[in-house]
C-alpha cells in the first residue's frame, strides 16, 4: 500500500499552508477520501504519528471524511450508490454507468493556532 507516500504529501501540504499564515501549531487536518481510493485510515494515522514528529503538525488530529461511491446511469440518468459488486444500474439494469464520486483524495482544510 502507498499510505506512506500519501501521508508524506498530506504533511507537506499542511505545513506549506500553515507557513503561509504563520501558524504556530496545526491542530487538525481535514481530509476527503473516496471509498474507492484504496487508502486505509488506520494506516495513514500510523504513518502520521511517526512522520509528523519534529514538526508543528505533531499531535494534529486527522479527520477523514469518506465519500461514498456514487454512480450515474448513462441510459436512464439516475444517480445511485452501488451496493453490488457488479455496479449495475438498480433502476434499469444497464451496465453503462459512470463514477461520479468515490475516488477523491483531497486535503479539504487544516485547523491551526
Amino acid at each position, binding site marked *: 500500500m502507498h499510505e506512506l507516500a500519501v501521508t508524506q504529501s498530506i504533511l507537506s*501540504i499542511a505545513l506549506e499552508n500553515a507557513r503561509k499564515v504563520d501558524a504556530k501549531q496545526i491542530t487538525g487536518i481535514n481530509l476527503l477520501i473516496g471509498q474507492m481510493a484504496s487508502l486505509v485510515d488506520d494506516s495513514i494515522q500510523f504513518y502520521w504519528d511517526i512522520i509528523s514528529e519534529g514538526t508543528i503538525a505533531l499531535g494534529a488530529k486527522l479527520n477523514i471524511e469518506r465519500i461514498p461511491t456514487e454512480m450515474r446511469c448513462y441510459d436512464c440518468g439516475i444517480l445511485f450508490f452501488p451496493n453490488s459488486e457488479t455496479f449495475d444500474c438498480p433502476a434499469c439494469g444497464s451496465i453503462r454507468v459512470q463514477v461520479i464520486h468515490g475516488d477523491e483524495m483531497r486535503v479539504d482544510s487544516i485547523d*491551526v493556532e
Partner: protein
Amino acid sequence: MSTRIQVIEKILSANDELAEIIRQQFDSAGIYAINIMASPGAGKTTFIIKLLEALHNRLRMGVIEGDLASSIDADKAKEAGLPAVQINTGGECHLDAVMVASAMASLPLDNLDLVIIENVGNLVCPINFKIGSHMNMLVASIPEGDDKPYKYPGAYRGVDALVISKIDLIPYITFNMDYFRKGVEILNPGLVTFPLSAKTGEGMEFVADWLVSKVIEWKSNLLDDHIS
C-alpha cells in the same frame, strides 16, 4: 483558539505537477511514453520483450523498468539490445514521478520514439501516481481470474488500453470472458482490448501495429502543433 484554513488540494498534487513536467520533456523530445501496469506474474516483462521484438526496426525504443529490488527485467531488455534503465523502488509499491524523472536522464532521449515504462507489479497503488506517460496500459492475465475488474476497479478505470495475456491457457482455466468483459465495459466503456499470448505470439501483431499507428499519429499531431 484554532482557525480553519481552506486548502482543497489534491493530496498527490506535487507528484501530478512533476508528472506534467516529465510529459512535456517527453513531448519536446518527440517521445511517446507508455506506462504498463499489471499484477505480479501477469506476464508484463514477457509481453514487453515480445513487443520490443515486434516493434524492432519500426520504432526506436527505450525501456524504464520498475522493480522492488533487482535488475533482472532491465537486463532482459538490454540483452535485446535496447537502452534500458532499472529503477529499484526499494520496497515502494509503485513508481512515482520523481523516480521516472531521474531514470529519464539515463536514456538517450534524442534517439527514441517510444519509451516503455514497466511499473511495479500491483493493481492498487500505481494507478494513483502519474508518471508523465501518454498512455496507461493494463496487462490482465487469464490465470488471475475473471473477477479482477470488480475487485480492482481503479486499475481498470484508469487505463487507455487493456492486454488480456496468456490466452493460450484458456482451455485449462475457468475464466468467463463475458463476465470479465462486462466488468471492464462498466468501468471503462469502449476500452481498446488486445487478447494475446506472448508465449505463442498469437495476437501480438495487433497490439504492435496499433501502437505503431498510435505513435505515428501522435508525432504528426505534435508536428502540427509546432507549425500552428
